[in-house]
């Protein structure tokens, strides 16, 4: 069975793909509707149905076509856009502005996101407290719930969180697909260690100042969520920094390099997730017997996770986010989803199916609430 599939790729017949999609249909229906679907309101019903069928069609297509990255990216990008749209429209409704005020900080009303986590660790260890003006429990995006979500996702997916969970990654993933050809073709491999340097610096500065310095000064995604009100030189400088980083690392460089440069060169959480790649069972494997060392996978990898040396050694680096782009690009099917302990080149189909189910279930349920909310807001605006 595996050898037949090897020639044709990982695609399945229509019936078989439908069968594989059935569990996803059932579980996502349960989780999205909470087990009690409410069809009383037209716009929320429409939003729910579009989301439900949308995610399951993508999952079906992953099995039917045997391709992963294209369909993953659609959901990933839609998730990122939806989150920004929902957040911004909520803020405009509540405050008439994308900025939060001193009062919001004093009252600890700032929504928490997973990017704060690297900076929390040292201060939490020494001061037994969280250095973020948010709420521990209750309310929107509280700290405890985000920590739980990230922890479980990281244990299960490792750096896969960066391609199957992070609601910011869709931005530079999306921009990296604008052009068909790269303008900047060569970037030194040393730069992929930059997130570790950023992690080092923000951890130390956050611990000493007891301020989440990455969020305060650097995070480019403040451009599409919320940011501190500009009232003085310091806050104006911060705005300049994050706008420049968003423009440079999220828009321009991904377009020119066809890579996810924000995730590869800046994100400190990506550095931690790279380390957690060692504890997740899912991985990408290289079947040396089939590999012709054409380096196509190295060319397409958006996170610099593959180098020519890695291909020669037959081992993918710890930077891999399991997005599936290299797997889809390989004409020899030599690079494939795998499970640790299972020899490379074996159980390819099984490993892919299991990984896809786990990762897609995570992103489908995690993103569905946000997508439904943004669709509802969109319908309200249009109708």
């Amino acid at each position: 069975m595996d050898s037949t599939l090897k020639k044709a790729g990982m695609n399945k017949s229509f019936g078989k793909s439908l069968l594989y999609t059935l569990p996803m249909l059932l579980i996502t229906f349960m989780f999205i509707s909470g087990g009690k679907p409410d069809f009383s309101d037209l716009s929320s019903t429409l939003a729910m149905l579009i989301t439900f069928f949308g995610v399951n069609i993508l999952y079906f297509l992953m099995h039917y076509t045997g391709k992963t990255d294209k369909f993953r990216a659609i959901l990933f990008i839609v998730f990122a856009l939806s989150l920004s749209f929902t957040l911004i429209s909520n803020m405009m409704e509540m405050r008439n502005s994308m900025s939060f005020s001193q009062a919001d900080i004093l009252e600890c009303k700032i929504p928490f996101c997973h990017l704060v986590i690297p900076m929390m660790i040292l201060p939490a260890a020494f001061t037994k407290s969280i250095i973020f003006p948010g709420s521990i429990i209750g309310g929107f995006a509280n700290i405890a719930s985000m920590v739980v979500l990230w922890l479980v996702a990281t244990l299960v997916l490792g750096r896969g969180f960066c391609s199957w969970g992070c609601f910011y990654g869709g931005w530079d993933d999306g921009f990296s697909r604008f052009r068909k050809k790269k303008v900047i073709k060569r970037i030194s491999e040393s730069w992929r260690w930059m997130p570790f340097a950023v992690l080092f610096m923000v951890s130390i500065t956050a611990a000493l100042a007891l301020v989440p310095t990455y969020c305060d000064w650097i995070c480019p995604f403040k451009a599409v969520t919320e940011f501190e009100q500009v009232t003085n030189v310091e806050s104006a400088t911060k705005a300049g920094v994050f706008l420049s980083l968003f423009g440079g690392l999220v828009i321009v460089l991904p377009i020119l390099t066809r890579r996810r440069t924000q995730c590869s060169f800046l994100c400190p959480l990506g550095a931690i997730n790279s380390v957690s790649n060692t504890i997740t069972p899912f991985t990408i494997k290289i079947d040396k017997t089939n590999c012709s060392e054409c380096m196509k996978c190295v060319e397409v990898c958006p996170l610099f996770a593959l180098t020519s040396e890695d291909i020669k050694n037959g081992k993918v680096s710890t930077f891999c986010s399991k997005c599936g782009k290299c797997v889809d690009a390989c004409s020899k099917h030599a690079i494939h989803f795998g499970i640790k302990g299972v020899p490379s080149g074996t159980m390819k189909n099984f490993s892919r199916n299991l990984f896809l189910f786990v990762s897609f279930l995570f992103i489908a349920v995690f993103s569905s609430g946000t997508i439904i909310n943004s669709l509802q807001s969109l319908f309200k605006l249009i109708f």
Partner: protein
Amino acid sequence: MAESFILGLSSGSACLVTCGMVMFPYLMAGSAGVKKIVSDVGVFLLTRLLVYFAIATLIWYFGQKFLSSQVIRTWVSGILYIVFAVMLIWYSLRRNQSKECPAGILASVENARIIPVVLGVVNSLGLCPALLIMLTKSSTEDTLVKSWLAFLSFFAGSSLWFFPLPLAGRIRKKEIIRTVGILATGLAGIIFIIKGLTILIGGIING
């Protein structure tokens, strides 16, 4: 103090590459025991600290004499922070490419006992961009004690890199640590560029 500590911590990898790689073979040569290695590293660090205190004192007096006006202080410190920070970034990029050893003076030292002292003096007077940033900072401090504390924090941050030196042979993945350290030096440069810009812009707005 935190700023100085961070600058020392992030640029310390460059210090280690410069002097640590020279000290390491010296330490490992012959039958040097752990006690001797620890004592040599200790002498090296103590020499650095004493030289830093001397520099902190001199530069603070210089600042009091020539940078007494707030306007001059703002402009000079803002511009110098930016210039030296750019140099720090350039320095870190250069370090990434070559493995120079400016402590070549050691070749002319005959008495092996004073090598840690000579290294300490050479390293602390190296006029690397990080030290130049510290000189700028120190010259604009209100009190001499603050100037000393700034250099002490800088010393503490940069010295942390030297503590594992006696175990250097056993540390794997040195290349990765070195790369991350060099990139962190560049980041420290960016922090001081932003600091310099904030000072200048604040100065312009406040007249």
